[in-house]
């Protein structure tokens, strides 16, 4: 009767098993530091251009779209407040995570998936290496480390985008007023929320990418399928998780 549920339940069970093994393996040897730094470079440095561009224009768009509403209420001086709260709490973490999901979760799925279909994962196991420790753990740690940093950068660049539009394009407010209101608007729980989110997203993004890579079957077509699935699932997870974490913070 519930036959149709068997496959997704099994996939979820595999995901939990992989996550458990990867997280439990963090303090255990071997550490594969070279792989960790390579992943940090790939995910962190590699994502810089896309994160900076997305961050800048999301802040700029925010200021642009809010300008009319603020002018209606004569509250144009509050543009810094709105840009900063929205960016730090929500848009910075979510957009950065979506960019990393598109770039890296899919990349992890395709890289590991290609290794899977060409028997490299089996070879790795046969030659004395645990693929979870060698492939999954470095990607998990690297993403968990660099995504919060990328988010901080995106938040800051987004504020610059908002400031450029608010002060130099639409002349809504002065630069000093913009930065002061942006700074004053932020409470500790906004910053906490803005940092907890990318950390949780990073864990999910990396594990989803690795999970789909590890489950790849069916040659090159299978690699393509795994890549797409990883990106879709990672992106949807980000949107769902941002609501869940936001709800937890609002009820605190």
């Amino acid at each position, binding site marked *: 009767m519930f036959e149709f549920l068997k496959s997704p339940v099994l996939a979820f069970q595999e995901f939990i098993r992989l996550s458990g093994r990867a997280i439990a393996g963090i303090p255990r040897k071997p550490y594969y530091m070279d792989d960790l730094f390579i992943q940090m470079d790939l995910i962190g440095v590699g994502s810089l251009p896309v994160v900076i561009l997305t961050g800048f224009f999301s802040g700029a768009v925010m200021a642009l779209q809010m300008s009319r509403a603020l002018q209606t209420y004569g509250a144009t001086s509050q543009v810094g407040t709105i840009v900063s709260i929205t960016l730090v709490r929500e848009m910075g973490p979510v957009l950065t995570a979506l960019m990393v999901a598109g770039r890296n979760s899919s990349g992890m799925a395709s890289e590991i998936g290609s*290794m899977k279909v*060409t*028997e*490299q994962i*089996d*070879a*790795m*196991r*046969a*030659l*004395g*290496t*645990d693929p979870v420790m060698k492939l999954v753990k470095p990607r998990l740690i690297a993403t968990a480390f660099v995504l919060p940093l990328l988010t901080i950068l995106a938040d800051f660049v987004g504020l610059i985008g908002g400031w450029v539009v608010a002060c130099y394009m639409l002349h809504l407010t002065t630069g000093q007023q913009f930065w002061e209101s942006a700074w004053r608007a932020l409470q500790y729980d906004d910053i906490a929320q803005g940092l907890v989110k990318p950390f949780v997203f990073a864990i999910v993004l990396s594990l989803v990418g690795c999970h789909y890579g590890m489950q790849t079957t069916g040659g090159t077509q299978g690699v393509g399928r795994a890549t797409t699935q990883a990106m879709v699932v990672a992106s949807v997870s980000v949107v769902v998780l941002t609501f869940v974490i936001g709800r937890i913070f609002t009820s605190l």
Partner: protein
Amino acid sequence: MAATGNNGIAPVVMAFDEVCFGEGGEQALHNISFDVRRGETLIIHGAAASGKTLILKLALGLLKPTRGRIFLFDRDVTRLAEREWFDMRSRVGVLFQEGGLFDSLSIEENVAYPLLNQRLLHFPEEQVHDRVEQSLEFVELGHTLEKFPSELSGGMRRRVGIARAIVTQPELLLYDSPTAGLDPITANTIMALIVKGRDVRGATTVMVTHRHQDGEILARYRFDERTSTLVPALEDSTHTRYLVLREGSVAFLGSSAEFDASKDPYVTMFASR
């Protein structure tokens, strides 16, 4: 000659006892039983999807059987934890069907991989380069150290795979369709290297193949170190046995002479008559 124990019988290196894999109608292996003794050669024949590769994957612990028991070096490994498997696998060399080379690593790094990653070996790092070079020279590819797998031909990749399989000088060598997709000349070169690998070190060898020529070379030839060529072996001096699989079941298991004498139409398809 097969190495013998105190009682004159060579110890069992690998054994399958009533092994099944898969459930219900999707059972890919049914009640597979056989053993391989030290110094023996086992050739596993069978049509495509008959379960040949599955046997090697089960023997390496890459898959777990649904029923039955598997023994490796006198130890029941059926339910061994993955962490314990890493030590067990350091005694086994394996060549995968597609070579299984890591495409992001150079040939030198590929061959050095088991030496640097198998914990039980404790291989001194300063000797790794020399051993890798030696192993690549063995397969006549000493000049490819700096290259990447994508720069080599299919046959050369398979030879690098052999170099990687033998670099740790394992007690048991597993070859999965080593000549699949290769032209006859390259296939013969690969087979000559497999015979050389077996005879120079006396390693126990298990080879999966659907080509009867491969089995014949392994059963009827030995490597002559003096002339560095393959020469016809004396009858049964290669201690070769055959296992033929049909749809996941054992269709034949026996010595080289019994294999040649078999009248089973399915078995005779894998023998050159």
